[in-house]
């Protein structure tokens, strides 16, 4: 298995060919984003005279700068909130065997199978009546609640496998439960926190359905709805649209390439949860 034989070479060629097929759409995306709209040659032919004009126009007319800032704020704040409240809740849920604890855990786990589509419309009514439609802060509130079941599930699973010796020692030394949580439990939760951080950040950043409902028609947008609005505005101007798509992908891909190990491990980490 560890020797590099002729069969390994054949496999290597095959895998690279498969990867090339997977990468083909990305080639076309980049190729057309740099192409002037007047150039009508085949989409797969390499663009001869690349231009940046699609990018400057997309940036200026698409409101992408504001959307980028909104996406960063919404993702950062809601992920921090959900990690804080879920890890705190997971501590008694993982440790206590009382009936209230098991009941609460099951109630929260119910959230894993409830599709957001069910809550979305009644919540729309509430948010409209509160005058919060079109505000990114309503999104922060939603994600903070929506991501609780999954994040709590990860934390409880991890905590149950963790020995109690440290927190018991801390309690015997006179630590209150909050201090024990902050200084003893939280540092030990680091591996599962990385997993939860990665999975939550990716799903919040990329979510489209929620802002489509609650931000439509407002001037506050996140990246996915800004892109959708852009496509609606420049219907068939694909060079321009591709530039906008590329602008929306670059920040995510940059983070992905910089932190690929933790991110891939984070996604695979759900396996051990």
């Amino acid at each position: 298995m560890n020797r590099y034989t002729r069969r390994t070479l054949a496999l290597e060629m095959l895998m690279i060919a498969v990867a090339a097929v997977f990468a083909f759409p990305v080639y076309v995306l980049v190729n057309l984003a740099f192409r002037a709209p007047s150039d009508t040659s085949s989409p797969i032919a390499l663009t001869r005279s690349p231009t940046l004009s699609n990018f400057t126009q997309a940036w200026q007319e698409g409101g992408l700068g504001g959307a980028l800032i909104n996406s960063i704020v919404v993702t950062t704040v809601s992920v921090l909130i959900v990690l804080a409240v879920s890890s705190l809740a997971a501590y008694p849920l993982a440790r206590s065997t009382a009936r209230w604890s098991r009941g609460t855990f099951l109630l929260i786990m119910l959230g894993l199978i409830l599709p957001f589509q069910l809550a979305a419309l009644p919540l729309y009514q509430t948010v409209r009546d509160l005058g919060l439609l079109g505000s990114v802060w309503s999104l922060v509130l939603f994600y903070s609640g929506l991501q609780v079941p999954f994040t709590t599930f990860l934390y409880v699973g991890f905590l149950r496998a963790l020995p109690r010796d440290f927190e018991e020692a801390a309690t015997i030394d006179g630590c209150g439960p909050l201090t024990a949580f902050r200084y003893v439990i939280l540092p030990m939760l680091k591996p599962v926190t990385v997993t939860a951080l990665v999975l939550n950040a990716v799903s919040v950043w990329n979510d489209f359905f929620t802002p489509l409902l609650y931000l439509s028609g407002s001037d506050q947008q996140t990246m996915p709805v800004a892109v959708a609005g852009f496509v609606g505005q420049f219907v068939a101007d694909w060079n321009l649209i591709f530039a906008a798509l590329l602008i929306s992908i670059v920040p995510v891909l940059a983070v992905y390439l910089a932190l690929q190990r933790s991110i891939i491990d984070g996604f695979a980490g759900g396996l051990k949860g």
Partner: protein
Amino acid sequence: MATDLRTRRPAAPPWWFTVPALLLFAFVVLVPSARGVYYAFTDWDGLDPDLAFIGLDNFTAMAGDPDALQAIRHTLVIAVTITVVQNGLGLLLALGVTTAIKSRNLLRVLLFAPAVVAQIVTAYLWRNLLGPDGAVNSLLAGLGLDSWRQNWLGDPDLALWMVVLVVVWQYAGYSMVIFVAGLQSIPQEIHEAAAIDGTGPVRRFWSVTRPLLAPAITINVMLSVIGGLKLFDQVYGMTGGGPGHATDTISTLIYKDAFTLGEFGYSIALAVVLTAVVAVVSAGQYAVLDRNEKATT
């Protein structure tokens, strides 16, 4: 067992630690979901606070609505096909990148990359690629396969499969990553022992690797089935549910009925159906996969 010192175990952490999470969860998920189930049996229009209880009217209307029945069928077809194809391909890729090939790490990073991109973005990208003058048709022409050119998204018989194709393209690398983690947790000695015993590679995969991959299979199947049942972004971005209703799913119909037709009550009844489908499928699946996992490990 516990020693004498441990019998004075400190009290469990206090219950109020759960309060912030519970409040958020109740406000965003639990209460609106419960209200949704109730509204499904009323003539709710999203505005009027005076609700009339109409029993099963929304559901009997659905049973006679070809668009709704079609959307339910599409949703199930999508979930099943994605689960089979995405995980089959993901497993093959995982087996490929856990060999001695030199590009294995690069390939993992590259093949997983689409999974971190927004679904709506990949949907718009593919809407163009699969268009009449798009890159896919250009590529076929370039390969001398002119007769294979199609209006991929405009043909009602093809469009649904194109939605499946795009989901598979985006998430096969995700399945791969989970299978890789599963494969790497299998001790090398087991493979070597089986090889020494003279077991062929196919038999070795079926009798040794597959049972030990059970946890990875469970996770992957759960993720793709639930993702497939809730599918919205790809359809919204690629076809808008069309041509006609050829690619509408339960989720796109929920959106259209509420926000373009204003039929909130009917829309929420569809959401109740979606919830029931997700609950039944995940419970059934959990039971089957859990039994397999217990039987084989």
